[in-house]
């Protein structure tokens, strides 16, 4: 069959055709919203019109079968209108109140996970991992599944002092932008890369490779027409591997994950914050990563018990102090927690006022 004529630079379809009539009518004229259940909310317009939303988790990797199923459900209850959230949730957009209950019922019978609204854990931002990326030190989807099976109730029902946003990045590129999450898992290499000198000269540009290293660990090795890496300077960021495939940094026995906490992206109450390292290393243990899951659950529980209402994890820790956080959680404080990269001068303490 002949292919249709290709077009270039058409851009995305205009969003307006995908807005349900009630949104088109009340566009920009919303008055307030109320969270009805952990997975449903209603937005009320100045005109009095209402729009109900039902939010469900998705594993982000979706088969076309499941997308079609979502389309079918949307046709049945939502006039076909549905949207997705930045954090990989599906939102069914309901214009008639009488459709709300039947929709929730059908979603439950189809085993959809409804929730994620309000002071809870919502879906986990994550990256491709072993499913699809070359640099991955771990599998993001498997970690997310393992974490959320364990934290399930915090998505569907249980409340926390405030939202807890989780993320997983499968290498320090952090596509998944873990650096401002309440709790994030970032996969790390821990061993200096191995260079294949034979293929190096054909595949890589020497100055580019040398320039790629943030710690200047790489220097030329003229004898081999290749490079050498200073083991004392390399901190395994993998940037050289990115620019030059013959540099291999994958190491199944040494690749693992680190846990960072206390980041936040909004400006509510306090300014956005980066997440900070608290656990420097846990071995990769597919398929369930039990120690990683236990560590995250533990941190969530200590936070739930100790924080004040509306405090995010980072705000709670700043109030009590990091020394207190390590004490409350019982997490060992290690050399890795002291910055020796770009931020030392900002992160060392310069006063004798701390807690025991």
């Amino acid at each position: 069959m002949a292919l249709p004529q290709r077009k270039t630079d058409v851009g995305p379809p205009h969003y307006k055709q995908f807005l349900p009539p009630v949104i088109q009518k009340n566009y920009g004229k919303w008055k307030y919203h109320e969270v009805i259940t952990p997975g449903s909310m209603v937005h009320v317009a100045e005109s009095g019109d209402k729009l109900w939303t039902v939010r469900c988790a998705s594993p982000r990797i979706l088969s076309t079968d499941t997308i079609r199923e979502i389309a079918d459900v949307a046709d049945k209850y939502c006039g076909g209108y549905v949207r997705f959230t930045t954090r990989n949730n599906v939102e069914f957009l309901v214009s008639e109140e009488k459709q709300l209950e039947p929709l929730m019922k059908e979603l439950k019978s189809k085993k959809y996970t409804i929730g994620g609204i309000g002071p809870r854990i919502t879906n986990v931002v994550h990256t491709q991992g072993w499913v699809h990326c070359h640099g991955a030190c771990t599998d993001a989807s498997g970690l997310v599944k393992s974490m959320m099976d364990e934290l399930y109730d915090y998505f569907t029902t249980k409340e926390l002092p405030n939202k807890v946003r989780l993320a997983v990045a499968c290498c320090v590129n952090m596509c998944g932008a873990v650096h401002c999450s309440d709790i994030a898992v970032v996969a790390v290499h821990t061993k200096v890369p191995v260079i294949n000198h034979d293929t190096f000269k054909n595949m890589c540009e020497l100055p580019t490779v040398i320039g790629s290293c943030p710690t200047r660990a790489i220097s030329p090795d003229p004898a081999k027409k290749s490079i050498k890496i200073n083991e004392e300077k390399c901190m395994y960021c993998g940037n050289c591997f990115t620019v030059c495939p013959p540099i291999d940094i994958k190491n199944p026995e040494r690749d693992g994950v680190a846990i960072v906490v206390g980041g936040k992206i909004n400006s509510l109450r306090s300014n956005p914050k980066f997440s900070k390292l608290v656990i420097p290393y846990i071995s990769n243990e597919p398929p369930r990563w039990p120690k990683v899951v236990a560590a995250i659950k533990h941190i969530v529980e200590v936070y739930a018990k100790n924080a004040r209402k509306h405090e995010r994890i980072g705000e709670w820790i700043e109030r009590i102090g990091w020394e207190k956080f390590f004490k409350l959680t019982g997490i060992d404080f290690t050399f890795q927690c002291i910055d020796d990269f770009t931020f030392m001068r900002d992160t060392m303490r310069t006063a004798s006022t701390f807690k025991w």
Partner: protein
Amino acid sequence: MAGKKYNTPLIDDLEKGPWPSFVTEMKKAAKNNEMANDALGHLEKCYSTKRGYWKHGGIVGVLGYGGGVIGRYSEIGDEFPGVAHFHTVRINQPSGFFYNSKALREICDIWDKYGSGLTNVHGSTGDLVLLGTKTEALEPIFAEYSSRGWDLGGSGSALRTPSCCVGPGRCEWSNYDTLDLTYALTQEFQDELHRPTFSYKFKIKSSGCACDCVAALARADLSIIGTWKGDIKIDQAEVKNYAKKMDINAEVVNMCPTQCMSYDGKELKINNAECNRCMHCITRMTKALRPSGERGATLCMGSKAPIVVGSLLSWVIVPFIKLEPPYTELKELIRKIWDWWDENGKPRERIGEVIEIKGMRSFLEAIGVPPQPQQIKEPRKDPFMFYTDADIEGFKAKEAEEKKTGKYKF
């Protein structure tokens, strides 16, 4: 399908438990699809050996474009021929991730015909990601989608697909039309999006208020955060209703970062001159409190992930800009920003890094933005400053003026 049946005990374990399983999704796709089936076997191998087998991206794409397709090949393609090529196609999502059932089915039908049937809805960039196809399918895929009004997203050293929060589509807090702005910028910069001419990637993300639901401040080179200039209007009747449900002093007044609120059990007061518009009170009492006056956004620049010398959050560059169609001021500013980056950036330097290297002054002067205290947390604390001759002449001229008027102007 005559596909090989793989034994996958490790990833099968990830079908158990209540959270939706990506393995189940992969198996659904694998039922009718050789590529998805081999992707399952391939992933099981990763789990059993604790390492990945994907090679660096290769050079694939559609004719004329330099992005939108990410080349992916397996090191062990002989063992798993279905994923020997397993390229990603990024489809530019509609603003706010809104769809209807017809559009979703259209996307699925084409994808089933040419690819693995696996997707990411959505990829972290915002694109709808089609996961896994062969090189020879790329041109047909592009013809099918583009003829129906879908285009590819960005990748490589180009403008990446802009994305935004739900904004006026469904949120009472939005200070400008995030959906429209994102659509307008995406259309305006189609060339920059599809044809990589930058030093490195450039991301634009738009949030309607300081809640920043798309995490623009942390993951966009240009982060557009909605805000306002007027007072917060208070509906005292609604305040009374909230008082029945919550402790307004503990949960709102005492958590106000600028201590500009008070509540005596009857009336809520805000000293608006001191408010820094953090949104805390408004999110707690959405029925009672609303911003008023001029609406617009704060433009921040430079955030990026830790590669290479540490992560950055975006810095405030333009404290306030009005954002109304056709957004001429913003579009012109963006072009000026790119011109400066183009002049000064080396390959693989994000704009935030270039600003650090060349200095904020060079950047601000180039784009015509004056220095303002809203841009900083605090002024510099070292004395190692640059003075141009013109600076000193300026200071001297001011002093001469003072001598004339007899009045100091600091």
